[in-house]
């Protein structure tokens, strides 16, 4: 039993150990104390357009993203006429392009397409890979700008230099290291597009006219270039539709470990970097502790419930009768009897094996699911739709909170929103007007924090409500009732959290523009999710930077016995309580309607 917990324990210990020195390195780079590599100094001087205040920095960030959008749209639109396309793949539907471009610009990497089916290597290289590097650096830069603003600096750095530092001194070396390890484990790295192989079982792909067994065509390409940054940048946009469950994208148990570690590396590190750059390491350790507590809880929850049998496949030995209040029925109650159900003849003593990649086993899947959603990566190595309903709650909670380490930079920014609100409300209980980092938190700062926090529930709940009640959602669900509700709700949760993992079980793929038989409401899903990603990405970046700037402008007062300590156990409970209570208040009703109803409900609701 103990060995089940070995993988998650090893991952967390490794990530914690690496984050300590790495945070020092990151702070050193971002403070600009390093000496540029030969030749790079010239580029950096060219990039450096001078120190920017927070407005200029934000404007540069937004304009840069706008250009990224145009670039992505053009690359995908011209796919049919571009090289590296031996399969002559056509153009995707415009809404799918909109969704994908938004998705890869916002670091969401929700894929309403399938990489191996719909993308040529040209699109993989110039869209998937390049965008995964760039969009990942944006959140990182936003956090660094916020830190400098918190320090009271008028000029919060130069956006372009920051992007360069993150990409060249952090992402590229880390990605090269991981890529080499992946290739050693058998991950393909080639410009070729497909490979023909004889199947082990003769004729598995059918036979030709002469009765000769057909060969299987397997799509591949520069996979080892895409996967490291997919994980390190907490992007999650897979080369293949099956993402990290695909043998080329995740060849072995060893790559599965590195894959998991890669996505944890920077989110863990940035919390400590925050503390180092602010010279408040103890404070950042408290935040780190809160995140770690939640993460351990979510992983343990996921593994625990995934080791239980799938309730949809087990027997309901007795029929159950529910009394439902109803005005039309006699006595005001209607009776609903759920008949007894015989279990399917399936051995479930290992837990729920449905939708698992059996090479990795029963623990690697829920571990991966909990991690990928907590750190807003969105890569998957199992079918989330097939997770037990309560297991599925863990990834959902990760995305609802969106600050359990979270994406690089943005996760830290998100927890600061909870923190500011917690400090503002509960911090007054020390008998002083609320302070953070020695500065008084006033109306303007709280307003900005709350705006940034409100976007997330608005985007998730509003769109889920819209799609749940209309045929836009009900026609797209693969399952009825509570599970179908989860499918819709997960999609928008993932989009709003800029996570990008798919629960799936939702008809959201139109495919090529000339697809005669697309999923009926995929256009609506493409556009709605695209808009959700846009709003949920940029408002929660711009508002917190403004908040940090306004807070930083205030006078810093020294802390004393009468001021609230931000590095104590009390503060740990304050922050943890704020996150748990606010999170529950925002999302408990949908949790009840989705996974909880799914779990407690009898067939067919559990099905």
């Amino acid at each position, binding site marked *: 039993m103990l060995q089940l917990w070995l993988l998650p324990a090893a991952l967390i210990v490794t990530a914690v150990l690496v984050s300590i020195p790495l945070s020092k390195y990151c702070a050193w780079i971002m403070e600009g104390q390093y000496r540029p590599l030969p030749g790079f100094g010239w580029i950096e001087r060219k990039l450096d357009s001078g120190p920017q205040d927070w407005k200029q920095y934000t404007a540069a960030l937004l304009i840069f993203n706008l250009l990224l959008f145009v670039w992505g749209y053009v690359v995908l639109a011209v796919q049919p006429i571009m090289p590296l396309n031996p399969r002559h793949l056509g153009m995707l539907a415009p809404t799918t392009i909109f969704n994908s471009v938004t998705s890869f610009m916002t670091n969401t990497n929700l894929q309403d397409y399938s990489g191996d089916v719909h993308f040529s290597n040209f699109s993989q290289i110039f869209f998937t890979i390049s965008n995964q590097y760039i969009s990942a650096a944006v959140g990182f830069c936003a956090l660094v700008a916020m830190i400098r603003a918190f320090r009271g600096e008028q000029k919060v750095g130069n956006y372009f230099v920051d992007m360069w530092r993150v990409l060249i001194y952090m992402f590229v070396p880390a990605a090269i290291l991981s890529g080499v390890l992946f290739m050693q484990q058998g991950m393909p790295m080639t410009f070729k597009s497909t490979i023909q192989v004889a199947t082990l079982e003769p004729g598995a792909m059918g036979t030709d006219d002469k009765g000769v067994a057909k060969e299987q065509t397997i799509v591949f390409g520069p996979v080892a270039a895409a996967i490291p940054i997919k994980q390190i940048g907490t992007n999650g946009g897979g080369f293949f539709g099956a993402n990290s469950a695909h043998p080329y994208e995740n060849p072995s148990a060893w790559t599965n470990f590195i894959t998991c570690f890669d996505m944890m590396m920077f989110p863990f590190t940035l919390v400590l970097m925050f503390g180092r750059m602010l010279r408040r390491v103890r404070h950042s350790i408290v935040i780190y502790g809160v995140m770690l507590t939640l993460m351990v809880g979510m992983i343990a929850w996921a593994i625990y419930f995934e080791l239980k049998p799938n309730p949809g496949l087990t027997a309901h030995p007795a029929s159950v009768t*529910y009394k*439902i*209040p*109803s*005005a*039309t029925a006699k006595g005001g109650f209607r009776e*609903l009897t759920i008949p007894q159900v015989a279990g399917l003849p399936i051995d479930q003593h290992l837990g729920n094996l449905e939708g698992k990649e059996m090479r990795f086993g029963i623990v690697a899947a829920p571990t991966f699911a909990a991690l990928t959603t907590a750190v807003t990566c969105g890569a998957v190595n199992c079918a989330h739709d097939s997770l037990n309903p309560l297991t599925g709650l863990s990834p959902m909670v990760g995305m609802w909170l969106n600050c359990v380490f979270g994406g690089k930079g943005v996760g830290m920014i998100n927890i600061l929103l909870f923190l500011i*609100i917690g400090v*503002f*409300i*509960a911090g*007054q*209980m*020390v*008998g*002083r*007007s609320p302070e953070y980092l020695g500065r*008084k938190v006033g*109306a303007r700062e*709280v307003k900005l924090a*709350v705006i940034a926090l*409100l976007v997330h*529930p608005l985007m998730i*709940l*509003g769109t*889920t409500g*819209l799609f*749940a*009640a209309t045929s836009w959602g*009900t026609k797209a669900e693969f399952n009825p*009732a509570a599970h179908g*509700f989860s499918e819709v709700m997960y999609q928008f949760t993932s989009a709003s959290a800029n996570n990008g993992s798919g629960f799936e079980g939702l008809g959201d793929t139109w495919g090529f523009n000339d697809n005669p038989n697309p999923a009926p409401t995929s256009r609506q899903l493409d556009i709605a999710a695209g808009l959700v990603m846009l709003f949920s990405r940029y408002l929660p970046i711009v508002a917190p930077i403004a908040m940090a700037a306004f807070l930083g402008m205030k*006078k810093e*007062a*020294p802390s*004393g*016995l*009468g*001021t*609230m*300590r931000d590095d104590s156990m009390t*503060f740990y*409970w*304050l922050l943890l*309580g704020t996150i748990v*209570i*606010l999170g529950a*208040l*925002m999302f*408990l*009703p*949908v949790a*009840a*309607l989705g996974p*909880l*109803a799914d779990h*407690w*409900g009898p067939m*067919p*609701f559990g099905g």
Partner: protein
Amino acid sequence: MEAVKNIPTPPELKITPQAPVPPRRSRAHALFASELVRPAIKEAFLMLRPDVQWRNPVMFVVEIGSVLTLLFIIQAFLSQSVSQVPISYFIALDFWLWLTVLFANFATALAEARGRAQAQSLRKARKDTPGYRLKGKDIIEEVSSADLKPGDRVVVEAGQIIPGDGEIIEGLASVDESAITGESAPVIRESGGDRSGVTGGTRVLSDRIIVEITAATGESFLDRMIALVEGAVRQRTPNEIALSLVLTAFTLLFVIVVVPLWPMALNAEIYMASYLGMTEPLKSLGTDVPTLVALVVCLIPTTIGALLAAIGIAGMDRALQANILAKSGKAVETAGDIDVVLLDKTGTITMGNRHATDFLPVGKYTAAQLGRLAALASIADQTPEGKTIVRLHLDRGGTPADVTAPDGAQFISFSAQTRMSGIDLPDGRQIRKGAPEAIIRFVERQSGTAPAEFQPAVDAIGRQGATPLAVADGATVVGVVVLSDILKTGISERLERLRRMGVRSVMITGDNPLTAATIAKKAGVDDFVAQCTPEAKLAYIRKEQADGKLVAMIGDGTNDAPALAQADVGLAMNSGTQAAKEAGNMVDLDSNPTKLLEVVEIGKQLLMTRGALTTFSIANDVAKYFAIVPALFAGTLPWLKVMDVMHLHSPTSAILSAVIFNAVIIPLLIPIALRGVRYRPLGADALLRKNLLIWGLGGVVLPFAGIKLIDMIMVAGHLIS
């Protein structure tokens, strides 16, 4: 005293004896005194006006919800529409929603009524009183106090009421200020110096003074104060504005959470109906508008929204009960944030005067002999120091005969030239006491010398922070009397309390650094400024503020005015000069310098109460979800009953219980809002931990019990089907 004799006497006849002004009864009103409650209830109904409610967005949403539910009920009556739940449920729901609004209004109205009651007692002192205005040199005319203008000079005699705020320009009088302070002991007010300020409405008990009026009618401190506590000019403080903004945002948040529940519930209904093969639509409470309104009302922070205004008013009110007139609510709030307090040594940390504490004889003399001679030299000395020398001698076994001047003795009073005082006995002995240098000169003139141990003794006393007073008998030095500063009783505890609050205390004194350091150490202040001038005081405040600290100080003199204005909290003594009172942002009616501690505590309490009730209000929501969510979907997802950990009777009773709890908690918390959460100087971390446990964790747990209890009561009373 020459001037006083020249004051023309007002015509005897016109001094009409007036009924004694009753002292202000500060804490007269019980929390729910009926004379306050009745008008507050009436006011609660009047405040239902939408334009009044609009100012409090949280309660405005509740009012809109109540109106919506009312319309829904009317529509149900008119159209006889059939619902899945009886109409009585909607009526009960609406009743409690309206009650929620009324409870909130009542809390505010009650706080205002208490403020008005305080103001009323102040106003009693504001009745028109006749004033005797000096017109020209010797002419006096009687005018009404309402007609007095700044610059007018009035004569006030014993028994008369001072007609307006002003400063004594001639004379000295004992004044009964109980009308404003509630303190029955009279105080001395005199021209010149820092105790020249008098307040209109107070009564002169003895002597006769000329007062120059400094504030026009309606602009005096009392007038401004009355306006302030009555709420007429109540302005919301920055912190209150920020908090109400957050509350509005939370309201928005819960609207965002609840509105999408309607289509989500519809989804469940449609599926369930098709699963059951029903032809008519299946209805659950999840798509029932009044129920969703109830859910919004339960979730939005109504508790703190209802009490926020009351907390602010009550903070001002508590300051007033401590006899502190704050010029704005902001000043009270700022007091909670104070990092440094500047305390004057004299009068705040030490008694106003030095006391004789020891006799140190030199040469052949004994301590008893020194005591007798020192006492003898002090018989006629009416200064406090002189009196304590006599008392110390008596305490140490001296007989009353020692301190009786023999017939024919001649007293030599203190003069600035000689810096000595004493007595010439009939037998020709000259006994003197005075500054050591003066005494040495005195004995040297008579060819005497001071013994060798004299100077070291004098120096040692200085090092201890005390003042040496040498005594000579003719040409011989007898010894030194030690005059020490006596710390006020309890001052060390109070300073310790400040320290535990995290507030640094700084002693301000004109003494030399050596003396100052000794007293600072004895009293336990954190820092001191010695040989302090008003300029140095101002500079010190500025230096602390530049470090981001908030500074409070007390002052009474005109030369304190710049520092009072510069300080974040400037507490002026009511006895102080007009300039000081104008410059500060608070006035202490009792003129008690240690009041600063109370001010800081009141400020902290105000902030804490807000934080505690907000935390409580939001923590409450968790339990409400567990009551309401299963109830909403009882018709479509009956298995969610598992979530109903409170095992409530039925869906409608669950929702009603949550709404009733939400409403009832408001009046239950009114006492805490008005009295404030108790502040204990534990240090921020311990205080936060304690309050998080009580208001955070307690706020999560309590409603589970409360909602269950209400549900049980309703079931027991057959109030619910």
